[in-house]
């Protein structure tokens, strides 16, 4: 990788990613509104929200909560950097997990019962999705013989053809990760009565703005993970990411929120089951992409 390419990729992470994430968040709200036969906010509404939150006073409950949120942003950024620079996928998943742990610590530190409930539920959600992410990495390793993402460049075919069941499993994981119904139990926009704002109840002003910014980065990061299923062709890869995004929005609007025991039961049987079947298939038929 020469200097020019490094510069371009850095710019993609620092400038293109937040803009893209902001537009994705706007499309999310617009499409959701249209699905509910509403007009919906302008496309740039997330940006207006962000700008407003930056101007608000910062009310702090615990003096460590903002530090944790900065960690959250830093590790999300770090994982996106590693993804764009095509580094070790296993390491990316670990760095991404640290980001989520920072978020959980932040909402635990505020002490409000609502953020406590949200944080506990997010811990349960991590328990649910983490194995599938690791199965995805294992599947990639078995097919390409390397954890490095750039080994996909020289692979003889896309991951999707050999890991179709893991792709389906990852679709469900994306619903959890985008914090959408039916698995939006940690921080829902629609759960005022039981949860207020879940994990984000006690954050205000600029801290909330940083959380929103991290969400934009996270949207791009998750789309990037889905892009890896067909990394060889940029058009089909983008189509897969977009399909995932709109699938998540559609499911969000047609389903109700489930409880956390449902989440565990569903992921540890159906979703993990799908992944294990796929891994066993790859193992016994000795499928290779190199």
């Amino acid at each position: 990788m020469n200097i020019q390419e490094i510069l371009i990729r850095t710019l993609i992470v620092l400038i293109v990613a937040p803009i893209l994430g902001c537009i994705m968040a706007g499309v999310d709200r617009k499409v959701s509104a249209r699905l509910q036969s509403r007009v919906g906010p302008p496309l740039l509404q997330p940006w207006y929200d962000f700008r407003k939150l930056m101007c608000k006073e910062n009310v702090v409950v615990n003096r460590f909560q903002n530090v944790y949120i900065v960690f959250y942003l830093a590790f999300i950024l770090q994982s996106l950097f590693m993804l764009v620079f095509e580094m070790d996928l296993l390491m990316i998943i670990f760095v991404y997990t640290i980001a989520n742990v920072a978020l959980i610590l932040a909402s635990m530190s505020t002490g409000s019962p609502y953020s406590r409930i949200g944080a506990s539920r997010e811990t349960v959600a991590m328990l649910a999705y983490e194995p599938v992410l690791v199965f995805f990495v294992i599947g990639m390793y078995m097919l390409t013989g390397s954890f490095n993402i750039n080994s996909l460049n020289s692979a003889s075919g896309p991951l999707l053809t050999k890991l179709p069941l893991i792709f389906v499993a990852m679709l469900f994981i994306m619903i959890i990760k985008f914090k959408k119904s039916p698995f939006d139990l940690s921080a829902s926009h629609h759960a005022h009565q039981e949860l207020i704002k879940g994990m984000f109840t006690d954050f205000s002003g600029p801290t909330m703005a940083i959380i929103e910014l991290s969400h934009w980065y996270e949207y791009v990061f998750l789309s990037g993970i889905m892009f890896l299923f067909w990394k060889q062709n940029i058009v089909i890869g983008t189509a897969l990411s977009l399909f995932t995004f709109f699938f998540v929005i559609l499911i969000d609007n047609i389903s109700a929120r489930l409880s956390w025991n449902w989440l565990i039961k569903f992921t540890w049987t159906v979703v993990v089951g799908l992944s294990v079947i796929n891994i066993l298939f790859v193992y016994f038929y000795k499928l290779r992409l190199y």
Partner: protein
Amino acid sequence: MSSIMSRSPWLVHVNANSCNGCDIELLACLTPIYDAERLGVLNIGTPKQADIMLITGSINYKNMDVVLNIYNQIPNPKVVVAVGACACSGGIFHDCYNVLGGAEKIIPVDVFVPGCCPKPETIIEGIAKGAAVLDKKRLEMKKNR
């Protein structure tokens, strides 16, 4: 740059012994017919992220501490919109023994939305006017810093 605040006013809705009439009309603002979200309005649950406090009902001695507590939790700049006759002046309950009579008795109110109960259109207009006040308050806050 003068419309930074008014593009996304987030509401926190406080029911201070209202009869639920105004609250139902307020929720009607968020339904597909009126859709206040097209103005960037969100009904946010927590006062710590809210900009506009929508208060309904004539306040009584039981809930005035709660109302004050919620008001103090909203970060500056903030605006209070009193919705309905009760929140404006006490309404038909103004001379009850247990009623303070209006939100203005304990917190500064910026916009009054009269009516018993006000139509959703009126409430949305009140929110829009409150959002304009938000912009002014932000500029004042900047000056005083």
